[in-house]
């Protein structure tokens, strides 16, 4: 049976390292290939951390958008051990 790809929004605003990346990993653990995870973060380290994780793990960093008071980091799950 085909599964429906999900779009999860994880709000880590106000949380500092390792909060945002840990929140992303929790979402990653329960995600499936093709899912989109959108991480909202105010911690400036989140951009570099998520970028480095995506590069190392082979997941796709779709976008990094600087909003007025926070950053929106969009990741597509393209690599996960099943």
């Amino acid at each position, binding site marked *: 049976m085909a599964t429906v790809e999900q779009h999860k929004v994880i709000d880590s605003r106000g*949380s500092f390292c*390792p909060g945002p990346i840990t929140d992303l*990993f929790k979402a990653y*653990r329960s995600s499936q290939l093709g899912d989109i995870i959108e991480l909202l973060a105010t911690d400036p380290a989140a951009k*570099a951390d998520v970028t480095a994780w995506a590069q190392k793990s082979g*997941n796709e960093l779709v976008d990094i958008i600087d909003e007025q008071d926070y950053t929106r980091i969009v990741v597509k799950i393209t690599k996960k*051990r099943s």
Partner: protein
Amino acid sequence: MQRVVIVGSGDGGTFTANLLASELRDEIHGGLASVQLVGEHLHHPFQPGNLDIAFKGASPDKYVKEETELLRKDVEFIQDPAVKIDFKAKSVSTKSGRTLTYDFLVIATGAVPDPSKVPGLAQGALNFHTGGKDSQRIWESLQTFDGGTVIVAIAGTPHKCPPSPNEAAFMLDEFFQKRGIRDKVKIKFLTPYPRPYPAEKISKVVEPMFQEKGIEVSTFFNVDSVDPAERKIYSLEGEAFHYDLLIAIPPHHGADVIIDSGIGDQEGYVPTDKGMMKVQGQVGVYAIGDATNIPVSKSGVVAHLQSVVVAHNIVAEMQQSSDMLEYNGRINCPMEVGARKAIFVSATYSSPPVDQTPSTIKYFMKRSFAMIYWRALNGSLERMFDLFFGQTRFPVKDKPEPQKQVVEVKAALGEKKVA
């Protein structure tokens, strides 16, 4: 009669009970207040001692005392695990079928390390988080280990004592140096974080020391499973490493009583206000230490500092005072780095850890804490801790209590005003 029930007899629960018994001594003797501590175990461990048991061969007995020895006489200790907390009925039910009603509740149920949450972990890995006996199994394994790959892996976050995985790697290095077989042992450190320690400033201290000692690090390794037969550990990201000895920090979750009562978040941690330590949406209910969902270190020091705030706030509520306190997020986690040196990972909600150099003084300060821990639990060393920690709490001058809560407390107090 104002009844305070504290659920959980670890560091935070024991300390809060003793602080309240001291603060409310006259009220307790006058029949106006009571402090009941509900706990599962008669034996109270000093959990940081697990590292010494695992990597230095200390006896588990050295780090255990009976709970009743640690409590002030005005605390009623009920050795009967809580199985249900009912906020509506303001009651706590125990395994034996007893029901305790409360006016004020403190949830100090801790976090539960649970190797069963990762396939193969319980069979394939040892750990020093599930108690002294399991820590002793690490020491026994090290005695017969003659060479190969030892992996220290963080298999779930958050976990108790954030520096402990790094300490384990440092202590393994020292152990194998002393045995004269360090050159035959590869030590590998697997972490889900981007760096060897999550806080960047602390990682800048740890990383060069790991390099110098030949401790290999693999970052962004979120443990997926362990194959005990093949002796391999796998990450969600698709990496795999072979091990000869695996020491893993298990995933943690909230206590069964929180999960079974339906009062926790997805992981069983209690949603709590990070300042006054009130359980969100409840009146007269507080949570402390590892039991909360607050993004701060799960450690005894945090539970200790939050206990001071909670004990103060409960007494203030009883006295209908607006003199409430907020915890400022202060953490202070010692990390041994070998060669009788240590650092302290210190921070608050608003100030991250700062640069520091490992020192022998900090090592001996950490060591001395193991000796004063038992006395510290009865609250008699608070002046010393206040001097050491500096500001850890501040008055809530600008945040008056909601009117609803004051009214309910007044109604609960009735004509007997506790002053």
